[in-house]
């Protein structure tokens, strides 16, 4: 399996994502510079965390105009699997590939800590090997992680079952007490209607090796491998 990690000017979790795929998952990964096109042999794309363009104007506001985003959109349109992590999630929202927006955390402070998230579905490419209801411990690190969507959009993504991860307590209970940043409905990660594009605020690449304090993040990457293997018996692009 070959993973393409996109690098925007200001991305700072790109090295981490590459390392997690190579050393955490034991698969191949390569960087894709924001000005290049994506070569066809990539099985999944990661838009990594960081501060693309310094998060100036709005987080991800300029990254979405990078030349590479055209081919990221095409790749997704043809069913390719895309994960946007933290800043990467913000870029997907600005590019209109996922509904809603991310605004400043409720208490206006940058938050870096472990949180628990509950997997709402186990039938997406990103969660086939994560039983529904499983609680994962994964760290967050952001200032603008407060997911917002207007009432109509919110009810649509809930009824479509697009919400993949929700902030919760250690035993999976979803409540305001365990909502670190004020996100609507405790949303921590959601997929597009087709289910092949995931945006999530927590950083799975930071908990893909035991020595760093957790391995729950690797389960998301492992799900993608499992999904691709099961579907075609070989790694062929297209969901």
């Amino acid at each position, binding site marked *: 399996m070959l993973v393409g990690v996109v690098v925007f000017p200001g991305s700072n979790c790109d090295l981490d994502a590459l390392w997690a795929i190579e050393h955490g998952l034991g698969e191949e990964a390569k960087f894709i510079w924001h000005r290049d096109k994506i070569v066809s042999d990539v099985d999944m794309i990661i838009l990594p965390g960081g501060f693309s363009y310094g998060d100036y*104007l*709005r987080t991800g*506001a300029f990254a979405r105009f990078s030349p590479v985003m055209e081919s990221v959109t095409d790749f997704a349109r043809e069913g390719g699997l895309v994960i946007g992590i933290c800043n990467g999630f913000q870029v997907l*929202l*600005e590019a209109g590939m996922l509904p*809603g*927006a991310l*605004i*400043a*955390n*409720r*208490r*206006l402070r940058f938050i870096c800590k472990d949180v628990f998230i509950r997997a709402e579905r186990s039938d997406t490419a990103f969660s086939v090997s994560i039983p529904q209801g499983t609680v994962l411990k994964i760290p967050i690190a952001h200032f603008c992680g*407060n997911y*917002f*969507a*207007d009432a109509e959009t919110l009810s649509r993504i809930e009824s479509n079952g697009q919400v993949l991860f929700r902030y919760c307590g250690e035993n999976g209970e979803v409540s305001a007490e365990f909502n670190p940043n*004020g996100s609507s409905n405790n949303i921590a990660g959601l997929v597009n209607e087709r289910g092949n594009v995931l945006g999530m605020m927590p950083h799975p690449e930071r908990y893909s090796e035991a020595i760093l304090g957790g391995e729950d993040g690797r389960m998301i990457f492992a799900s993608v491998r499992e999904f691709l293997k099961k579907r075609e018996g070989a790694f062929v692009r297209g969901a």
Partner: protein
Amino acid sequence: MRNFKATVKVRKKATVADPEGKTISEALVRLGYDQVKKIRTGKVFHVELTAENLDSAKKTVDKISKDILTNPIIEIYEFEIEECEC
């Protein structure tokens, strides 16, 4: 080409939460300014640009505001523009 100066004001739609505005108004009341009822925050961009005439300058500023300076899902914008020697 002539020089123009625009002031673009961008702020959150009324339906969108404004954590910064809420925090500041709470702090002000705590400091004794209880006349303050509500605060909403926003951004302002002071743009200097060149254009053929006022009309085309307006079109450019409007396009920039709509496509880039504003996230239509959560924000609205307004702008003023005038010629200047700057």
